[in-house]
């Protein structure tokens, strides 16, 4: 009987140089504090000796071109490549020092996909899509020099309207929990991105966050109140810059009704950085 043995969510642009450039000294300081909290979360995850790590994140229009944008997609196969980008700008540059290849947990990925089809979750699949900073910055920050266990990357379309609903993402997490429970594996799950930034995906609004909105989300997660989170609308997420919270909704469905502990929350004018861990039974 398998079990979810670790659950955490965190911001995914984890690059002190980037935030130094765009926010000054406080940007570097906040990012380093967030990364330290995420590294400690990684130590606790590694201590579980989990068989696999599910990573729920979004594509920044890197892996999927405009010939297909899947609402939800499971990366299957035996290994996954880091995205490559010539003359990388902004958050793409954070990838450059990271390993290029990562093992996948093929059996768990296939089980989530195949049992999803049987249960009404028509998930997309990919054998080739590479992973960008949304997956690899948290995974590498958590592990440092320790070995990274086999991954199961899952993409949620957070940006290209129409996105899946918060409630549907939560339901995907519940599906994942059922698959893990029927499996022989102990599994960790992380969700990445956020908190609020880039409201309305508008260049003139770069630099705005919505701290009131973020604190509302945190309040509900700390209390294990997941129904109001499922009622979040696409419009609310778009206006607040909470697009990537859809990834967190998948994790919430997988661990509900567990309560969250905030390991880090720091306001920046560009983004509110956060790291959160759930108390699992």
């Amino acid at each position, binding site marked *: 009987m398998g079990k979810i043995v670790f659950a955490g969510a965190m911001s995914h642009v984890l690059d002190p140089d980037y935030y130094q450039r765009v926010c000054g000294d406080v940007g570097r300081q906040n990012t380093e504090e967030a990364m330290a909290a995420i590294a400690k979360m990684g130590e606790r995850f590694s201590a579980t000796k989990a068989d696999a790590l599910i990573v729920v994140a979004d594509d920044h229009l890197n892996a999927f071109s405009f010939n297909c944008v899947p609402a939800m997609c499971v990366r299957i196969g035996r290994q996954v490549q880091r995205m490559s980008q010539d003359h990388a700008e902004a958050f793409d540059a954070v990838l450059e020092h990271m390993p290029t290849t990562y093992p996948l947990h093929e059996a768990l990925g296939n089980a989530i996909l195949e049992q999803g089809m049987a249960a009404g979750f028509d998930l997309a699949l990919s054998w080739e899509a590479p992973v960008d900073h949304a997956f690899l910055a948290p995974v590498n920050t958590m592990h440092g020099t320790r070995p990274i266990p086999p991954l199961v990357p899952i993409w949620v379309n957070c940006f290209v309207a129409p996105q899946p609903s918060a409630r549907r993402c939560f339901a995907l997490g519940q599906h994942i929990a059922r698959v893990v429970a029927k499996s022989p594996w102990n599994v960790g799950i992380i969700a990445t991105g956020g908190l609020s930034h*880039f409201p309305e995906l508008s260049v003139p609004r770069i630099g705005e966050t919505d701290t009131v909105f973020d604190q509302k989300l945190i309040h509900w997660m700390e209390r294990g109140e997941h129904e109001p989170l499922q009622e979040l609308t696409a419009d609310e997420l778009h206006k607040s810059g909470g697009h990537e919270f859809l990834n967190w909704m998948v994790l919430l469905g997988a661990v509900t009704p567990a309560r969250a502990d905030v390991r880090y929350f720091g306001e920046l004018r560009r983004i509110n950085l956060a790291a959160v861990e759930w108390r699992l039974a």
Partner: protein
Amino acid sequence: MSRYAVNSLLYQLKKDPAFRSRFIKDPAAAIADLDLTDAERAAFVARDMRKINELGGYLHLVISIPSLAAH
């Protein structure tokens, strides 16, 4: 406004270094055959990423195209 035309062009500019080089050298010629509105074409020729974003170009593309990114 054609969300597909604008964003597929942005994607090509990010991922295809040879096309990006042609665009930087002569943007009007590089996009001459593409199905863009006059406003979209003018924004690309001016390399005005803010305007391209206003016309439907996705934020994560307009801030991450090498040599052309809006900041």
